[in-house]
């Protein structure tokens, strides 16, 4: 009996786990606008052709908040931030940093990181992402 590697599933489909975890945007082939959702057409130029592009895994925090109250199943406080990854703004939490205004600062350099969100009844592990101090 051979062992199968435990399978994994990303939190969102724009998080690609292999070979190394990275985010993939849908880029408008006409105007270059980048999106993280299934598209009908481009909000910038109205064309409807997109191609996947890898988003750089490092960036700079351009805005953040430290949220005290979280929905059920989410730990609080947590840090929500906007990370500019080489010109592509990304929405994420900051991880591996104390959620205090002393530790989290505007302009800080961060890098993509992933973590386990638990395993379902079929043994599939859910993988989330965030950014940690680089």
């Amino acid at each position, binding site marked *: 009996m051979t062992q199968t590697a435990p399978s994994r*599933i*990303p*939190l*969102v*489909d*724009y998080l690609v786990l292999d070979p190394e975890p990275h985010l993939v945007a849908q880029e408008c082939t006409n105007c270059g*606008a*980048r*999106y*993280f*959702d*299934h598209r009908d057409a481009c*909000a*910038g130029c109205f064309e409807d052709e997109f191609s996947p592009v890898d988003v750089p895994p490092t960036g700079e*925090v*351009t*805005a*953040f*908040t*430290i*949220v*005290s*109250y*979280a*929905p*059920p*199943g*989410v730990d*609080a406080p*947590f840090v*929500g*931030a*906007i990370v500019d990854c080489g*010109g592509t*703004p*990304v*929405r*994420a*939490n900051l991880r591996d940093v104390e959620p205090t*205004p002393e530790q989290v600062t*505007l*302009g800080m350099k961060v890098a993509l990181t992933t973590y386990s*969100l638990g395993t*379902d*009844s*079929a043994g*599939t592990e*859910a993988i*989330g*992402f965030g950014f940690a101090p680089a």
Partner: protein
Amino acid sequence: MASGDVWILGITMTKFGKRPETDTVGLAAEATRGALKDAGVSMRDVGVLAAGNLMGGGALGQQLQKQVGQTGIPVYNVANACATGATALRTAIMAIKAGEVDMGLAVGVEKLSGAGLLGVRGPRAQSDTWQPEGRQGAIMGLDGRVNTDNMPGTFAQIGMEYGHKYGGVSFELFARISEKNHGHSTLNPLAAYNKAMSKEQIMSDVMIAYPNTRPMCSANCDGAAAAVVVSDEKLKTLSDDQRKRAIRVAASVLTTDPYEVGCQVLPNVNTLTKNAAKQAYETAGVSPEDLDLVELHDCFATAELVHYDNLMLCDEGNAVDFFESGAPHRDGRLPVNVSGGLQSKGHPIAATGIANIWEICHHLRGEAGDRQIQGAKVGLAHVIGLGSACGVHILEKAAA
């Protein structure tokens, strides 16, 4: 009076706060009957009704008619998040400008007491195995896992983004903006809260989403506001007293956010506000220096700061300096939110876009009592709903 102008003939806001003694329709009826009385007209005179209520299911207009007068007129139930009231007013104004009616009524109402944080939902029902759903193929709720969906956190980032771009922001700065508005509210008997709060009190209160503590967040409450608008031609047929108290709508503008990099990642509340303000100033033929007071959408202390800039009350990037100069205090050069703002007056969502216009009208008419801004002739009311929609109205005292 330039031909084609539209005027506010009557306007009312109810007491904001906890109103357990009445229902949504009752609050709307109170504001409506108040506005009609203030205008000196009856439902029989009104040719169109535009109504907004976010929590109620999109039928407020007809429910209200059943309580205050069914006259068969067209009803537009409208929604635009926190800009719903302004959208209702715009719709009534548009019907007049289209020549369809000579008098319109706009109403906004919300019952929110005890609603808690808006934008926070529970997780979706747990499935036995992960199932990607929606346009991002999410296998579980993203709120709190990929940034936050809640409003205090969203607007916190909007304020911090401004700080990253232009510098000068701090927790203390935002708390002082809130201190200003809570101070203003002590003069407003219709505000939900009338308590002055020191910067220290504000900073040491419960943290909701840094840098917004509880008093720096808009207060969920019950309330309604309503306005009667008339055409220029109709106004000429009315009494001296009605004409003297009428307020000219010098500009009524509604915008949404144009596409820009990042606008679908963090809502961009800046460009659509700048666009609305620019259009409004051009239409009204006034500049920010001409304004005697401004009611802007301080849904959070962090939001007020960016809108000083967006409404061009200061040069680009200079919102911090503008605040530090004392200008937006009620005794400053350009008083902002002398009503107390959403942080203390309260924010019954769909009512807000008319209530802020009521505040301006109140001063332009010289009826604002203890908090009157002396000699006020021109004011601006701004409201923004995430999603997004921005309403800007510029209002002017009648010449005669």
